[in-house]
């Protein structure tokens, strides 16, 4: 099957997410769509899959122009999608999830459960998956859930398969296995469109590469091109992918976490006897696949996690059990993983967001009165020194790009007198330019002589930024290693296999 996208244009209001995009996917071929977050990759695929309607251009299948009013029609035409956020229903079984939308039935619309199980088993065995059709999807590990998603795409006999950022949630090993599955699908004659921003993966499996930037195709690339070439094409300028930092100038271990154990509201153990120390002038990275207790660890330190026991000491003072305000006042800077949810008030201006944590004290307040003049002066300075690209300090936070939002958060957190900086996935979803900036700021914080704790889910970030790397798995720290440890070694730790 041959799929051709011709001149696809999609606008959201004034914003053109896709501008005249062309793309061809042919059977027996893996076509990578490479671009940064926000470049318009997912929009393009949602247009193809019928989730969005294009404002211009056409989709041509085997020479015939087609239009999909919805995903149902796209599926019927032989297009399957493995979504970035799995389209699986956690409380349904594997079989129920797989058949949803094209259920085998007996008379009167009764489900043919046995046939559904058989379908799952059949496709599983073709790819060497070991999946129980009756397992409840929510109980399965993420990697297995993705396989269910793949089976689901294959069940309608899809000839074109779209993988939308499929590796974001996987361990390195699982990523390798996914690559293998993609090759196998290619050998079966499927046309594969692989959307990603990870250069390593592109180089590994791509037959063809199309790079898009700001909604436009900027060109084709070859898998044999160097990582730097691909990166500069994707970003639009020369980029330095490594983190520049001098050797750490270590001081005493001023931040100590001991025997930290925490339970989720539903009673699950989310932190299991976690202990570590961070020295002044050191970046301590906590790596691991998302959902292994990192969020709870950060929230425990900040004081918003319930049911925690153990001890968290900063310069000899206990933080555990104190209110968030007291913790912040004792010199903890916190960059949350979800900046739009926890880092900013979306409807507030940049200036207001910059004083969220200090709105009750000088220079921003005198008694019960806000000192707006001081605030505006302060915000103006920060706008410049953190290179926040906005019309003015009165722009609302939700009008900023992700990179600029993160700069606002950093500007706020770093302009206090810090004794500790905690940043949770500080570069998640940012463009390369902003990533460089955020990394610089974090290194600068380290060099100012405070301990820094970074929670990272991307291995590259963990090893480049960290002076030491701890790996978390199921609420435990399973190993603390040096950042030049082999990738495979770290991958094993992330999968819970202790060295």
């Amino acid at each position, binding site marked *: 099957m041959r799929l051709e996208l011709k001149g696809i244009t999609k606008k959201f209001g004034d914003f053109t997410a896709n501008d005249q995009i062309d793309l061809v996917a042919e059977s027996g071929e893996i076509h990578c769509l490479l671009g940064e977050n926000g470049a318009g990759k997912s929009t393009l695929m949602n247009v193809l899959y019928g989730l969005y309607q294009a404002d211009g251009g056409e989709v041509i299948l085997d020479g015939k122009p087609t239009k999909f009013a919805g995903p*149902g029609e796209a*599926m019927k035409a032989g297009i399957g999608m493995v979504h970035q956020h799995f*389209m699986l229903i956690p409380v349904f079984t594997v079989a129920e999830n797989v058949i*949803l939308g094209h259920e085998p*039935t007996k008379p009167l619309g009764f489900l043919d459960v046995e046939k559904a199980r058989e379908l799952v088993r059949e496709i599983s065995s073709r790819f060497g998956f070991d999946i129980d059709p009756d397992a409840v999807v929510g109980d399965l590990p993420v990697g297995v859930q993705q396989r269910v998603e793949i089976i689901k795409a294959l069940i309608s006999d899809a000839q074109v398969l779209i993988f939308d950022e499929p590796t974001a949630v996987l361990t390195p090993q699982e990523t390798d296995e996914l690559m293998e599955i993609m090759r196998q699908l290619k050998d079966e004659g499927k046309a594969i469109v692989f959307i990603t921003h990870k250069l390593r993966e592109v180089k590994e499996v791509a037959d063809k590469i199309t790079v898009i930037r700001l909604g436009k195709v900027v060109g084709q690339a070859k898998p044999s091109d160097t990582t730097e070439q691909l990166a500069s094409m994707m970003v639009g300028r020369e980029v330095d992918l490594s983190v520049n930092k001098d050797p750490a100038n270590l001081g005493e271990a001023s931040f100590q976490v001991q025997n930290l154990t925490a339970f989720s509201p539903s*009673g699950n153990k989310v932190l299991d006897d976690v202990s570590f120390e961070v020295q002044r002038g050191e970046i301590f990275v906590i790596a691991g696949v998302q959902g292994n207790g990192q969020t709870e660890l950060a929230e425990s330190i900040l004081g918003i996690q319930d049911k925690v026991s153990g001890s968290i000491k900063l310069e000899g003072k206990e933080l555990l059990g104190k209110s968030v305000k007291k913790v912040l006042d004792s010199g903890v800077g916190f960059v949350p993983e979800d900046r739009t949810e926890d880092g900013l008030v979306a409807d507030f201006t940049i200036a207001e967001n910059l004083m969220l944590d200090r709105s009750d004290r000088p220079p921003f307040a005198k008694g019960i009165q806000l000192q707006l003049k001081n605030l505006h002066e302060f915000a103006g300075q920060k706008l410049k020194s953190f290179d926040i690209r906005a019309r003015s300090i009165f722009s609302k936070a939700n009008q900023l790009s992700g990179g600029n939002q993160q700069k606002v958060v950093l500007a706020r957190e770093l302009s206090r007198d810090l004794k500790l900086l905690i940043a949770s996935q500080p570069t998640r979803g940012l463009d390369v330019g902003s990533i460089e900036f955020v990394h610089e700021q974090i290194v600068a914080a380290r060099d100012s002589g405070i301990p820094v704790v970074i929670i990272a889910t991307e291995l590259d970030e963990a090893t480049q930024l960290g002076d030491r790397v701890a790996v978390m798995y199921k609420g435990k720290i399973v190993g603390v290693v040096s950042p030049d440890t082999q990738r495979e070694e770290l991958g094993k730790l992330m999968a819970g296999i202790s060295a």
Partner: protein
Amino acid sequence: MKQSKKTPIALIVLLLAASLIVPNVGGEQLEVQIATRTDLFPIPNIILPSQGFATVMLALMLAMTALSVYLTFVRNKKTPLIAVIAFSFGLIMAVLAWLFSGATMTFTTLLAGSLALAVPLIFGSLSGALSERVGIINIAIEGQLLAGAFTSALVASVTDSVLLGILAAMIAGALVASILAVFSIKYLVDQIITGVVINVLIIGLTSFLFSTLLADNISLLNQPPRFERISIPLLGQIPVIGPVLFNQTLIVYLMYLAVAGVFLALFKTRWGLRLRSVGEYPKASDTVGINVFRTRYMSVMIGGALAGLGGSFFTLGQVGAFGKEMTNGAGYIALAALIFGRWNPVYAAMAALLFGFALNLQYALQIVGSPLPSEFLLMLPYVLTVVAVAGLVGKVKGPAAAGKPYVKS
């Protein structure tokens, strides 16, 4: 994972309450009448020593509480449902022994009446199940029941036909549900607020129409024919089971069909699978080509029709005429039954039966002349609702997308 301590604590509290009651069981004996006139063969009345019987039941409750405490605190396991059921049985029996001691308890009649009184609750909870399983929180059950009650009285009076009455009730219920559906699906209004507003609206509307229209023309507009008792041959003559289950009115038989039908449709058919997927994760349904909006409209309105049908019980089954606000909170109890029954139509029906029993007990006790003041008895079903939902339900998750409107990007 740590087990919730809620169940053993609830059991201990109830056990303490029961142990206060049991020593006060007065009277020598408790006479239980099981036989009814239609039985195939006569059954003698059972005579129990009331104090002894209550003590045995207390022992049963104690054993179940001990089991629950042991499982939760020592073995870190969940208390099995059967233990909770056994406990509840013991509690109910002990309370009955206390209340009916020295009198004759017409056990079979008590059960048959409970079933009948549970009918609108069950239909209401089916409406809730269909609506919430598809992702729309249904507070408007009360309004649907009331609309059904009013319409069936009016239409059945005018046409002199019970069947046309219930047909009209179903249409009315579906219409009320469609208001809920349109506001929550199309206009994305908060579903709980919409539901409450609908209830207030229907109470006002039916009360207004009742005063202006029905009250002056009672014989023409508010004197509907009633459901007739239909005894199913043979089945109806089996002792206990017969009079309870098979010597009932048409609407009770319809209720059996509705519970089984909704259960099978929800969990065994393609239709139900799609419906539940929409209630859990509508975007996932959308990406496999399921029409989220149509599924939601359809399911909510079918639910409304069932609740409307249930509402006809008040006028055509129980009272024989429409009265202002006659549903009296049944819609909310139905909602409680739905949650108690974990959004499963069969469990919800069982929970509704329990509430029906409490309602009927209140009537039965007024006749016997019980030691409890009648105001307290009026409270009974509601107290039971609170205790059941708060204490024994534990942590259950409803459909994940319930209450969240789906917006297509």
